[in-house]
């Protein structure tokens, strides 16, 4: 069907790989993580991926490095390091 109007479709990375914006990188220490899910709850980007096994990982393609996850983590399982 030919285009009739500027219709946008759902997509990850609608504004590109926003991970490129990051100047600081959150890193999860899986040994300390208690799977409390607070980082997942608070991540503005939805960049905390929940896996079948209950583990969490960060989608670095999109994580903007705001650092909220590290702030809200009660187990101090997320550390912020400088991007190389």
């Amino acid at each position, binding site marked *: 069907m030919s*285009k*009739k*109007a*500027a*219709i*946008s*479709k*759902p997509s990850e990375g609608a504004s590109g790989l926003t991970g490129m914006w990051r100047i600081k990188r959150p890193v999860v220490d899986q040994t300390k993580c208690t799977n409390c899910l607070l980082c997942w709850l608070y991540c503005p980007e939805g960049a905390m991926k929940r896996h079948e096994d209950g583990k969490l990982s960060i989608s670095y393609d999109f994580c903007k490095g705001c650092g909220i996850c590290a702030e809200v983590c009660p187990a101090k399982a997320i550390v912020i390091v400088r991007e190389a």
Partner: protein
Amino acid sequence: MILTGNYAVSYGVKVARAEVVAAYPITPQTQIIEKLAELIAKGDLRAKYIRVESEHSAMAACIAAEACGARAFTATSSHGLAYMSELVFWAGMGRFPVTMAVVNRTLAPPWSIWNEHTDLLAQRDAGWVIMMCSSAQEAYDTAIQAFRIAEDERLLQPVMYGLDAFSLSHTAENVDLLDQSVVDGFLPKLDPAKLPVYMDPDNPITFGNLLGPDAMMEFRHLTKEAFDRAPAVIEQVAQEFSKISGRPQTGLFDDYRCSDAEVALVAIGASSGDAMDAADNLRDRGVRAGVIRLKAIRPFPGREVRERIGGVKAIAVVDRDYSYGFGGIIGGELSSCLKGGVHRYVAGLGGRDITIGDFEGMMDDALSKAERGEDAKEVWWGLKELA
């Protein structure tokens, strides 16, 4: 049925099965929406009436309703249209096939409720089909056709149509109404699948987020192309409507006795009939006069009109509107389509009557100037000294 122009619109919208009416009262339009509110309340029209708090909201609601697959209608006038203007553009640029009746009224200040066309014409760049009705029957017929035109897959743009304040809106005449089944055959249900924008959770889309300079022009060009197709759509819809109604219909314009004319007058709206009477009077005096009554303002049928009257000795254009610092709007638009000047008459602003004698005078004036080889220029017809 004896109906005013306003009620004729209401009954046209009813038989067209509008599904959402979002509207706000304003003189001299109010009767249109009062009647619709009544028809909906009585169950004669199955529709939702949204009693919005402004015209701005009326059009926003109509757009949203169309985006969710409902046939939407509103009516307004003058200040209401000006206040709505942001959303008028939204509907046009978003290709939401809303239809709207506009009862033409002077924009204040000072306050005036009387007829002038500047309100409608000020919206001419918004991506709407714009028409002017000349009788209550035509208002009824146009109210129905407007939905067919707006929803035509070749067009998919909103349609507004004007009714002169009081002389048409409040003047009663006999209007032939069509049976529901006849109109149902002419105007199929709105098919969401063909809408440019349709909000459906099963197929989620976003409409209206940012569009960069890399593609905006191309989307605007789609609307331009839609308007290139609009004359054919309007003519075809008029022809089909003539068949179902048994009444001849005007598509883009009426040509009244122009084929052999030496002077042609171009007018819009309800007073065009008087202009035609004036042409008859001139012909009685041996002057070959004719009238072009424009029904469509957008698309502007410049080429088609030029084919009819391009060779006429004198062309007079009447504008019941004005673009300050430029001139009468219809005169200006027509000038851009014709070689040589047109004689431009600004008349009837703020609701002043334009009589048959006035139209005769304009045609006489234009013809005598042309015969004397005088340049065409603008005349404010009947201008008086302020007391």
